């Protein structure tokens, strides 16, 4: 009997090892990639300082002083070691471009907004898109529905930032239903009160709509394809023959089986949360992480890029791990001895 327990435990151990390996690889890549860029964060910082403060004769000396301060004069392997160690401790250090701000503080300011906006929008988009896709792929859907739904998908081909502008133009500028931009009315600073919550929701609706409407098509397409495959399966024919109610057939047999690959994709889409929202955040002047990451990149702010990406990497890897561990529960056809 012990061998049986063992195989399950061995699976878990192997999966955890993969998890660690993934994080290590991701962190390593994010250590190397910004350093491959031709810019130098300290020089960029000094250049910015001197552009603000007039000519500096001793810039080389200034750069050196900052290099030492950020530990960039240490050999690369030492920097790498320190980086891995600090990442695992969530010690993200000081931002280079916004010194003496700590990366942690910068991220903490942007994270809640991005998480709230994008996670809600992503989940909504997933649900709406998957439902649309399921209806489209379902042979028994009403004909009218099957004609109308693809039209809804056309929004998918519009860039989200463009749609964002159109939404603002129509609903904020024209109809004045929603505020132009920002995350909350600044009469109501963040706090535990209804006014703030209301104003945050009010501000979030347009950007969320832009994201949902432009991304739901991807979920719909995937879902439709899986639904098409599923509806041809024999168990569906059997279920049909058993005389199950169409509604039950749709949800329990069709959707339930078709949605599995979608769940994987949903976990993966977390990775896009910061990077994918730069432009939407920009259009809606939303104080999220996307803009922060973008600024980190254009300023070559290693600390900021690494700090933000290590959070993302660990977050995505964890989501993927959870999906992988839960997958056999959702789909008993997958035997997990075969990692």
């Amino acid at each position, binding site marked *: 009997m012990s061998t049986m327990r063992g195989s399950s435990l061995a699976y878990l151990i192997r999966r955890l090892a993969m998890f660690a390996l993934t994080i290590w690889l991701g962190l390593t890549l994010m250590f190397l990639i910004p350093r491959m*860029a031709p810019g130098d964060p300290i020089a960029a910082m000094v250049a910015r300082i001197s552009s603000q403060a007039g000519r500096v004769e001793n810039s080389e000396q200034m750069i050196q002083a900052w290099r030492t301060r950020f530990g960039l004069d240490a050999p690369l392997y030492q920097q790498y070691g320190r980086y891995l160690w600090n990442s695992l401790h969530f010690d993200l250090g000081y931002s280079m471009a916004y010194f003496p701000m700590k990366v942690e503080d910068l991220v903490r300011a942007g994270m809640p907004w991005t998480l709230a906006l994008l996670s809600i929008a992503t989940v909504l988009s997933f649900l709406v898109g998957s439902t649309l896709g399921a209806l489209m792929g379902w042979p028994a859907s009403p004909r009218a529905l099957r004609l109308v739904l693809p039209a809804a998908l056309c929004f998918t*081909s519009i860039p989200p930032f463009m749609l964002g502008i159109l939404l603002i133009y129509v609903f904020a500028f024209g109809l004045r239903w929603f505020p132009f931009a920002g995350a909350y009315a600044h009469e109501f600073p963040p706090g535990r009160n209804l006014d703030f919550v209301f104003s945050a929701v009010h501000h979030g609706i347009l950007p969320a709509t832009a994201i949902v409407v432009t991304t739901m098509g991807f979920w719909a397409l995937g879902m439709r394809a899986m639904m098409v*495959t599923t509806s041809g399966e024999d168990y569906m024919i059997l279920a049909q023959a058993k005389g199950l109610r169409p509604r039950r057939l749709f949800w329990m047999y069709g959707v339930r089986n078709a949605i599995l690959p979608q769940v*994987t*994709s949903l976990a993966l889409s977390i990775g896009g949360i910061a990077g994918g929202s*730069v432009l939407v955040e920009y259009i809606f002047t939303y104080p999220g992480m996307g803009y922060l990451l973008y600024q980190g990149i254009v300023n070559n702010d290693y600390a900021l890029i690494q700090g933000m990406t290590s959070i993302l*990497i660990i977050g995505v890897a964890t989501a993927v791990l959870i999906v992988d561990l839960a997958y056999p529960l959702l789909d008993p056809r997958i035997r997990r001895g075969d990692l």
Partner: protein
Amino acid sequence: MSVPSWINAKLVAGSTVILFVVMLGLLGPWIWDTTQARVASCPLNLPPYGFSPPNLTFQPAQLAHPLGTESSGRDMLAVLITGTPNSLLVGTIAAGIGIVIGTLLGLTAGFMGGWVGTLIRVMSDAIITIPSLVVLIVISSYVREISLTSMGLLLALFAWPGTTRTVYAQTLSLRERGYVQMARLSGASTLSIMVFELLPNLMPYLAACFTASVSGNILAATGLEALGLGPSRIPTLGMAISNAVRGAAILRGMWWWWGLPIAMLILIFSGLFLITIGLDEVANPRLRRSEGNAR
């Protein structure tokens, strides 16, 4: 069954649309002066022929520029004629490479398992966790001039891991099917099972992935262009749209500047979507209703 089964109205319609876009690229230079898609080749801010926006100070429309011009002096018709196929090209390169690599790796990982599978999965998971924007910006700073191909290749770097993962999951579930066992019993090799037994059944899903990926990559390219990091001299729809956004086109009432490129994006998307649906019906015989009654 008087009509061959592959002739499917949706497939034909979709292919016609895509063919039209491809032909635009091939024949465009003969039917219209496409050098007018360059900066400063035309008068600025002309409305489309037959329209006279009442509000702002636009010059009267000219027949020489039937779809109008934008504020850097590009003729919109020329932009669409060259930009639409270009955008399709970028999207197709990125999506095509991404799907092919992703499918190969996903099938391999799912069917072979072992350390090869683990390696593939760790690699794809790691790439997925990395924010692509960082890498794209870093790499684009190395490329001397970003061409359509290099843009497509750049985007393909991030197009494969998602496919790998979903194909992997699908393979795990499909490989326990009876027909896979039958194929094994028939002496088929692992490779041939992957290619001839599993792959065809993944086709509807892959086709959908491809459609989504083409438009997704066109949009990703648009995003890079909006950040100012795309090719600047070769017209694409994304460039037109990001120029429109930068030029306050909506507020200025220049609907032709942003609306026409978006219409073309929708056209590309619809064409691909129709092809996907059509392919499903051709490739997956159980969906053909006329025959389904035999059951």
